[in-house]
């Protein structure tokens, strides 16, 4: 009887899998081609650019900084930084984030989203077992994750520098992370009311996993305890020490975790009605708050959640950077390559090193908040496409007022987030007793120096939304440019004017360097020009929808 019941639960499973694959073939093929297709050819860069011994050493020094730890990994093999060690330390984390996002988005799309649109109801009405749709979706996503991982693992074997066994281990590490987040997506799809909420909750889990690993690895690099990394699926992958001193068991943790979450999702699915959620639906106020009566207050409501997430990130990064600075300064002073990277002389004391490093931290904080500013401004573009901009303009609201409300709210919240990140970093610097207290005011000044660049970044995004709405993605290269510029300009002797190519590199953010008031005024002037062009065009053009 029990077996009969369980086979009935899965009735139609095979047909469902075929149906899912057929309907989503484009989506599945894109992930499967894009992830290995972008990754594998670019691996060559690790071999050529940093293949020389001095190149690898300089790279290792950068990756030894907290920035390197936060954006890379715990730094296994930095003392002999081979190509494999680079891939494991720098690339693996991003492969894992990518596969996690793919798993989450696919899983939610195939489950909760199907429920939201009512399509699952049609399927459920057919001769299909109760557990079959979720099991089918799990099977397809897990299969996709494994295929991508195999492509990565076997693809990497094409590089003779990379030991073959470790290539397989890397594939397993990616698969384990993917399976874990397949499970996370499946569980959240049962808990949440909508696909959007399920994706949001799953991404929050990914964010926490990233933060735990970053904090744990940073502490471990400084000689502290890295236990926080062991709470994170992203940490397990790094602990496999691939291409350095391979150990398999941390990688298997992810597989086990994915299996456990899958079982949990199936149990939860069996306990709820279709269309219902385990978490209660959150109702909101029946009446609008007095504050909600202006386009600007509505913009704030639109971007609030994203603002909280990004400014949490910037505060976390700012706070994480401070503690390492004293020992980092000592470390840098002892390494000529690092001194050269920061453009410093041996005779400089502790402060210039701390200041140079602070310049890098402040730049990264500004780039993070700049990313928030761009996404927040681009929200207006997607709102235009979904008809929400029209919803405001149907009311007695002028186009200037609506665009201005977006620009002002986004610019102010971007600066506020930068201020918060700056305060967190400032606090971390002040509380670091190894540093000269004189560094702190210079850090505060550097944070303020980023403001004109951030305003110009938002203005550029606004210009694109209003004037070139099909090209809003053009904001991103401008945002990424300063980081590239900082990494490469000193080493390759780029002429000074190249820093003017993007808002956040135009004025130096390094504390202690002279304040470039001409660049700052120039940035405000460019921002004013972009904004006036944006308004001019937005007054004249048809709405897109």
């Amino acid at each position, binding site marked *: 009887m029990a077996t009969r019941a369980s086979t009935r639960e899965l009735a139609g499973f095979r047909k469902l899998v075929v149906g899912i694959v057929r309907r989503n073939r484009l989506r599945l093929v894109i992930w499967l081609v894009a992830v290995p297709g972008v990754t594998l050819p670019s691996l060559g860069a690790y071999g050529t650019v940093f293949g020389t011994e001095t190149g690898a050493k300089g790279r290792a020094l950068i990756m030894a900084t907290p920035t390197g730890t936060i954006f890379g990994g715990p730094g296994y093999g930095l003392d002999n930084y081979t190509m494999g060690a680079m891939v494991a330390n720098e690339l693996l984390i991003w492969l894992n984030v990518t596969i996690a996002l793919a798993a989450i988005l696919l899983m939610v799309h195939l489950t909760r989203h199907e429920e939201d649109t009512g399509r699952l109801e049609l399927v459920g009405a057919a001769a299909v077992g109760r557990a079959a749709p979720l099991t089918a979706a799990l099977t397809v996503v897990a299969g996709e994750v494994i295929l991508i991982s195999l492509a990565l693992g076997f693809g990497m074997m094409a590089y003779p520098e990379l030991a073959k066994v470790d290539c397989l281990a890397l594939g397993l590490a990616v698969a384990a992370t993917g399976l874990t987040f397949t499970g996370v997506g499946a569980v959240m799809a049962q808990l949440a*009311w*909508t696909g*959007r909420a399920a994706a949001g909750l799953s991404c929050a889990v990914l964010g926490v996993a990233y933060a735990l690993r970053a904090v744990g690895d940073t502490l471990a690099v400084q000689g502290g305890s890295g236990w926080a990394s062991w709470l994170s699926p992203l940490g397990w992958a790094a602990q496999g020490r691939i291409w350095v001193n391979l150990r398999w068991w941390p990688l298997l943790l992810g597989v086990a975790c994915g299996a456990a979450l899958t079982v949990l999702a199936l149990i939860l699915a069996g306990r709820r009605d279709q269309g219902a959620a385990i978490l209660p*639906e*959150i*109702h*909101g*106020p*029946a*009446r*609008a*708050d007095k504050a*909600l*009566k202006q*386009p600007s207050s*509505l913009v704030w*409501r*639109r971007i609030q*959640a994203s603002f909280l997430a990004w400014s949490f990130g910037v505060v976390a990064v700012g706070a994480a950077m401070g503690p390492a600075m004293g020992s980092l300064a000592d470390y840098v002073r002892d390494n000529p390559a690092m001194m050269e990277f920061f453009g410093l002389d041996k005779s400089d004391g502790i402060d210039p090193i701390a200041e140079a490093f602070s310049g890098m931290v402040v730049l990264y904080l500004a780039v993070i908040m700049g990313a928030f500013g761009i996404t927040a401004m681009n929200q207006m573009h997607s709102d235009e496409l*979904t*008809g*929400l901009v*029209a*919803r*405001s*303009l*149907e*009311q*007695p*609201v*002028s186009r200037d007022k609506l665009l201005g409300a977006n620009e002002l709210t986004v610019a102010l919240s971007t600066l506020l987030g930068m201020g918060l990140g700056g305060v967190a970093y400032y606090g971390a610097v002040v509380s670091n007793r190894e540093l000269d207290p004189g560094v702190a005011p210079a850090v505060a000044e550097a944070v303020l120096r980023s403001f004109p660049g951030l305003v110009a970044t938002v203005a550029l995004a606004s210009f694109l939304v209003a004037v070139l709405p099909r090209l809003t993605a053009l904001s991103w290269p401008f945002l990424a440019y300063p980081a590239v510029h900082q990494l490469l300009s000193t080493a390759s002797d780029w002429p000074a004017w190249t820093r003017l190519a993007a808002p956040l590199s135009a004025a130096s953010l390094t504390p202690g360097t002279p304040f470039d008031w001409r660049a700052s005024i120039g940035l405000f002037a460019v921002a004013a020009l972009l904004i006036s062009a944006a308004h001019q065009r937005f007054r*004249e053009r*048809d*709405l897109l929808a």
Partner: protein
Amino acid sequence: MTTSTDNTEAIRTEGLRKTFGKVKALDGLDLTVEPGQIAGFLGPNGAGKSTTIRVLLGLIRADADSGPASLLGLDPWLDAVELHKRLAYVPGDVSLWPNLTGGETIDYLGSLRGKINQKLRDELLERFELDPTRHNRTYSKGNRQKVALIAALATDAELFLFDEPTSGLDPLMEAVFTGYLAEIKQAGRTVLLSSHILAEVEKTCDTVTIIRDGQAVETGTLAELRHLTRNRIEAKLRGPSGSLAGLVGVHDFVADADRVSFACDNSSLETVMSALTRIGIESLTCSPPSLEELFLSHYTTPAPEGAGQGEV
């Protein structure tokens, strides 16, 4: 309720043109709605109804060589803000800010206009049976439509533009809406109602404009429009139908024993009736064309040349 200037049409467009790339969405549209009228606006998908309304709302701009458009005597593009204080609009496909509740949305839209009638707002919530504490992203299409309807109906607008406002509503809710339309009319306010539900238009509208390929092909009161088409005549005769089928103005003639059935042009009604009388009539039904027949007759045949010049 008084409009600002008498003698000003609530809506007037003459030769309205709007081109998207090579597609002529509006190709010389004439549309007039007098104050206090409920005007039906009919046409199949893609005829240009929504484009017209978007031009009237100043969301998109008519072509440079377009004829003029005015609402309440104002220019829909240049005076958009001033005009929007005096009109209310309900779209057919209502997108709403997903993280606001329905109640917040209604209040927000109301506060952009300056004020909202709280008593009417609460009454409308009750009549339309809408839970205002749910977030917009959890509402069905019909519920989102209710949010937009309540936000519009709670205003003191002089002019209402409705673009298929009941397409997601059940018949009970549709009836509630029709009830409010009657109140709007009683208060002397003006309505442009774009709809696919012909029964709704037939029941509520004073005038009807039928649009096709971006032009108005018919416009007038329902009574006037009925004159343009054929009556349906079914009769049981005392004698043989004889030459009846050959008379000018008789179409689709079918005879079955002593029963005949055919369509008859309005202009030939008199001659045909006297012919029938000569044969002898046992029973007779003559039905005027329904709006549906009117509508279908315009859409199942190719567009006539010089459309919009119908003899009314």
